[in-house]
């Protein structure tokens, strides 16, 4: 309708006028995406300290092979386990390997004392994978490079085992979420605060039109963020979306529906921008921390796993990982998409009820 178009036009104009904000939302994703993915471990990089108590050709060969391998960013030799452990304490290495005495001698006798690994358990994610990698490497070294004939692992979807792509997806979605929700919530609350909301209430403008316009504008901003982010990551990290890109952008829009509605909901229950900021911290933190952005779903306690039904970010991450990293299409993730739409509808109803309720928050 013409009115809707006029409101959208007004919102766009207002957005454009705010230069600092525009600069922030255009430039900061680029800065963040330009720096943070470099901190993610692309290939396995183990910092190893070896304590060679055997001092034979075999043990020296072992150390030599590791030094030559690209998967070890540093291989240090220490004389005692204590010194190796203090290296771990000082965060200079994450694994200490002790090759026990008589290692070479006992190799063929079958009663060989096992190697001794001490791992810094502070970072679970890394500890587990570095341990696994090292064990496999040691196994294959000793079997003379012969593949363990019992089970073969085929890595799908990410043959180079690039450790970055998983978190780049999370980062992109995080940026879109934070910018989109903060913008829409504070925009609406500041209109409430300034009295503009009261002014508009006296016009024939309906609540539906008002909110729909906001949704459209800020969904466009969110989508633009995603497009910029994807393009940037493609250029800098050769990061590609395996599934159909149009499908993924559509998913982004679908995701923005419940997420922005959540922002509008927050705006409907807060009186001023300060309250809105506090509420945003509470809600966004909860949603982010429970969303499997920084955890595995199955490692979370049962009650936390069940809460995912309330969390649009969870479904977005789930569907995104399937579409971006594994190449599935929108049709495959219809469950996640459906839940997102449902969440959006529920939030819309709740928001409309609150806006229309006789409480003084929205009708003062």
């Amino acid at each position: 309708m013409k009115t809707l178009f006029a409101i959208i036009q007004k919102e766009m104009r207002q957005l454009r006028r705010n230069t600092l904000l525009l600069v922030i939302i255009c430039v900061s994703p680029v800065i963040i995406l330009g720096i943070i993915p470099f901190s993610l471990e692309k290939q396995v990089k183990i910092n190893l300290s070896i304590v060679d108590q055997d001092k034979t050709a075999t043990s020296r060969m072992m150390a030599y092979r590791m030094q030559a391998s690209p998967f070890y960013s540093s291989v240090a030799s220490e004389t005692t386990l204590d010194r190796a452990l203090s290296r771990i304490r000082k965060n200079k290495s994450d694994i200490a390997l002790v090759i026990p005495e008589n290692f070479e001698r006992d190799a063929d006798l079958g009663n060989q004392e096992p190697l001794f690994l001490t791992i810094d358990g502070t970072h679970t994610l890394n500890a587990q994978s570095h341990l696994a990698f090292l064990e496999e490497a040691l196994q294959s070294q000793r079997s003379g490079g012969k593949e363990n004939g019992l089970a073969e692992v085929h890595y799908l979807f990410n043959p180079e085992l690039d450790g970055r792509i998983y978190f780049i997806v999370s980062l992109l979605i995080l940026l879109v979420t934070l910018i989109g929700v903060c913008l829409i919530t504070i925009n609406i609350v500041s209109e409430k605060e300034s009295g503009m909301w009261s002014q508009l209430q006296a016009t024939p403008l309906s609540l539906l039109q008002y909110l729909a316009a906001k949704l459209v504008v800020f969904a466009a901003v969110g989508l633009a963020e995603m497009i910029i982010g994807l393009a940037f990551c493609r250029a800098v990290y050769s990061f590609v979306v395996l599934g159909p890109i149009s499908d993924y952008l559509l998913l982004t829009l679908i995701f923005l529906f419940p997420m922005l509605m959540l922002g509008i909901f927050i705006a409907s229950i807060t009186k001023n921008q300060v309250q809105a900021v506090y509420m945003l911290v509470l809600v966004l933190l909860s949603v982010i921390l429970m969303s499997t952005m920084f955890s595995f779903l199955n490692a979370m306690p049962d009650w936390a796993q069940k809460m995912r039904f309330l969390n649009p970010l969870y479904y977005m991450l789930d569907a995104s990982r399937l579409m971006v990293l594994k190449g599935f299409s929108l049709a495959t993730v219809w469950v996640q998409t459906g839940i997102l739409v449902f969440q959006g509808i529920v939030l819309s109803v709740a928001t409309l009820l609150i806006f229309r309720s006789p409480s003084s928050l929205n009708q003062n």
Partner: protein
Amino acid sequence: MKRTSGILSVARKETRHIWRDKLSMLILFGLPGLIVGVFGFVLSFEIKEVPVAVLNAKHDAGIERLFQKIDASPCFHVVKSLSHSGEIIDAFASHNIKMVVVADHEPAKALVSGDLPEVHIFMDGSESKLAIAAGSITRKLIASFFREEFPEATAGAVFPEPTVRFLYNPELRREVMPIPGLMMIIFILISAIMLSVSIVKEKEQGTLKLLALTPVLPSDMVFGKSLPYLFITIFHIFSVLLINYFVFGMTIAGSSLHFLALNLLFAVNSMAFGLLIASRVQRQIEVAILCWLFLFIPNVFLSGFIFPLITMPDFLQTLAWLMPGTSFIEAYRGIVFKGTGWLENALPFALLLAQIVLVLAISARGFKHQKAGR
């Protein structure tokens, strides 16, 4: 003592503002407890009950037992049984399945003909760390299974495994590990955002200009405003400590005084960054976005909270050390888990202190411009 009375009156005004806003007060006081108490349980990358699909092509009884063994493991949970290999790829699209184990032969028969049994593990490689770790665990499971079932045949194929010990986290106990990071988030978001949004609100409303006309110096005004938040943060430090003790049984290996000093220092540091943002922007929306994008995200990703520093390239490690969160987490883990002392944590403390001084200096210039009237 005019200056102190000026500072105190600003502090009193700020306290009233906070007190009158019950919703914000609730969030202000309750959020840290919530974050640590609730989310402490949630953040974990433990490999636990990972959903797995299986394919027993020849319906072999031995393979069936293998799959049961995999299901029995705390690491995996078999959720789907496939009927043919065409279903393998699509299996990853449902139930959060991360791995498909396929056996298309009968091991007993294979061994008879002198071959080793072969099981194929299709791993979701998109999360590479999980893939590597889970793949290794599965291989070990399979190897130990075959060793039990067919001990003679598999004798030469497997070597004794290394003994493994995890330092600082003997059972990879998950609840306690995220706590330093969660504390960092609390301080950064609450101390920084709340102080700076309050200041910028007054900027937007124009009341800041009014204050500029009073004899209260801008520095004193800022100091006065910060005081209530400082006390709230001290409350947080103690309340979170209690929660950590009673809920997680977390005790401090090092000196408690040292620990309190660290928390206080970081809280002041976060507020300083909040002031920096407040001195530069005019609107509350800008505060919110800048705090989330430039305080929350970099500190969460670069501080060693989730991703360890040593795996970062050198130039980024330097950058990471510039982040206050890094110093905080480093020293926190040291004092609480490893029992390090003042000397060992000299660097993080020094960095935090230096950042406070630097950031306050830059903010002061920003605020002076305000008073001069731009």
